[in-house]
């Protein structure tokens, strides 16, 4: 029973980390970033390259984050910004971008599976239960990240501007907020978060050109029901991730695989706003 509790907490932590980049972009830019899966993959390859270069695996996450921010800023300037007035085209553009990125990885690294070293190996004993050390570390990082992101949105100037853009972009611009800049920073931040998340989950998994795809679907569902709020994303991750673990453990892992999608659809049917109170 104890290890199931840990399974739920760590799964929720991983889901939160993976979905946060998608959510911040959706919230501020009203843009569903379908390249999110490819950004996760990019983070995975960043972790692989860090490992291959002999750098401590602890640095792979910040390195992937930095690369992601830089890449996100370039993508925003060249691909997303010209399409601001055409939101549907922008979504298609991110989808295309995702395909291009994963094909570039396939050409560069091959279709095979690569590995990134894990900074923590083996298990540690917590409350009398042997549990994977790295999964626990990821959960701790998820909680810290949630606190940092909530702080960023509610305590900083950028956060204030971003919240103004989220609520009413025209009004925000009228008040002198440079919404183009807010959007650019947001996209950079979102892709940085995605890359860092990819690097963070890679030691538990393996890297291949399509590793981000299943995560994209789950993140999408979580973001749909959580709305634009980090606390509600955390709640959504806990409820959906927890249900997934419970169904996988006690009924069937095959049903567990579709839990998040089905549950999200049911929640949206009963309450179209999901968990968001905004």
């Amino acid at each position: 029973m104890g290890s199931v509790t840990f399974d739920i907490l760590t799964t929720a932590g991983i889901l939160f980390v993976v979905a946060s980049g998608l959510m911040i972009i959706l919230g501020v830019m009203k843009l569903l970033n379908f390249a999110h899966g490819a950004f996760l993959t990019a983070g995975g390859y960043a972790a692989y390259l860090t490992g291959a270069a002999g750098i401590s695996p602890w640095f792979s996450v910040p390195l992937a984050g930095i690369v992601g921010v830089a890449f996100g800023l370039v993508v925003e300037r060249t691909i997303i910004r010209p399409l601001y007035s055409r939101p549907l085209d922008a979504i298609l553009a991110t989808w295309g971008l995702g395909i291009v990125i994963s094909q570039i990885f396939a050409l560069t690294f091959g279709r095979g599976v690569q590995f990134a070293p894990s900074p923590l190996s083996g298990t540690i004993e917590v409350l009398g239960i042997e549990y994977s050390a790295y999964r626990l570390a990821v959960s701790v990082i998820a909680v810290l990240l949630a606190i940092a992101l909530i702080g960023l949105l509610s305590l900083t100037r950028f956060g204030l501007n971003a919240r103004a853009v989220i609520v009413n972009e025209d009004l925000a611009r009228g008040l002198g907020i440079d919404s183009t800049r807010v959007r650019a920073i947001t996209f950079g931040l979102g892709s940085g978060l995605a890359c860092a998340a990819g690097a963070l989950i890679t030691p538990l998994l393996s890297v291949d050109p399509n590793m981000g795809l299943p995560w994209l679907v789950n993140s999408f569902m979580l973001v749909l029901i959580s709305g634009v709020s980090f606390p509600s994303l955390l709640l959504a991750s806990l409820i959906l991730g927890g249900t997934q673990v419970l169904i996988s453990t006690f009924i069937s892992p095959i049903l567990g695989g579709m839990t998040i999608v089905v549950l999200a659809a049911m929640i949206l049917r009963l309450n179209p706003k999901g968990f968001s109170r905004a």
Partner: protein
Amino acid sequence: MKLKKVLVGIACCLGMSAYAAEPIKIGIPVGLSGANSVVAPSVVQASELAVEEINAKGGVLGRPLQLEIADDASGAQGAQRAYDSLVFQKEVDGIVAMETTAARNAGLPIVNRGRVPLIYTSFYEGRSCSPWMYINAWVPEQQVEPIVDQFMSEYDAKKFFLIGSDYAFGRGMLKFTREYVESKGGTVVGESYLPIEGSDWTAIISQLRSANPDALITSTSGGAPNVTLTRQLRSAGVDIPYGNYAIDEGTAKSMGGNAEGVYLAASYISSLDTPANREFLQAIKDKFGDDAETPNELSVPQYDGIYAYAAAVEKAGSTEPSAVIDALSEVTVEGPRGAIKMDKQRHAALTMYLGKVASDGSVEVVKSFKNVDPGEQCPQFAD
């Protein structure tokens, strides 16, 4: 008399140089794209090497062999296109196919309609029968026995836990494993599956830990699901004897320490220390240099398969399909895996090797099991 033979020989050679003897076409449907694209290059290289070697020795019945390679996209739709073009447009004389079960099943009706001898060279879940098909790779009967026997005798394992990907091969292998374990007096304390692309094994690993088995056997799809399972097992501290049906040498190598101690059973392991295998490894290296792919459990049967087809044509004296089909069960191929004859209801008895992954990711042969019988695969072809 002797002079006459020489004259005939000269005439023959003159004829060949004037218009070369018409080649015997062998079709190779293979997954150049899709799931099999990782292993496909090694399969193509093995085919090319076999054809080159046979042609260098004068071909078959004086005719050179020629390859027709077609991408089956690792699935049913692509295979239909590939077989259609090979059988009806390229009009190949025979087909040697390393491909997925889905692709083989899609190709069989076309092969039956076009009456083309097919040698299937991928291990598979067993019991696929067609009057036009032979199989020279392993089936569950040959793979399961070495691993289960080893765990029962070496580790005194009684309680087994089985984990698989949810698809025909994964379920077929584990169903057979369960029956075999139970027939040997063991019990299966858990059997769990994840969807085929699934890679989060958290819940299953929790089930495994609470079931507390003596040994673990997994049958996932290759690639990411397999390696993520192995990594997550290791990070969860699972260290019971662990047999893996989906791991091969290349994967073990790339996983390094994570795969240490994993058992596998194979009809070919590249470290096999036999003259035939050393020669084969050298030939691949000589022909392809730096681009040479490591020969493996899928590429070596392909190499054997082309030799088997050539030998059958030689024995039948023509490429006439039904004569070749009859001859295929009578010819023996001496390849890197040893002598192989497909005389067991269209399948072959194989020498299986039990391997264990060492800490550097290389596979060492622990034991060999001579001529493991494929069992009752296609009773309608028993003779």
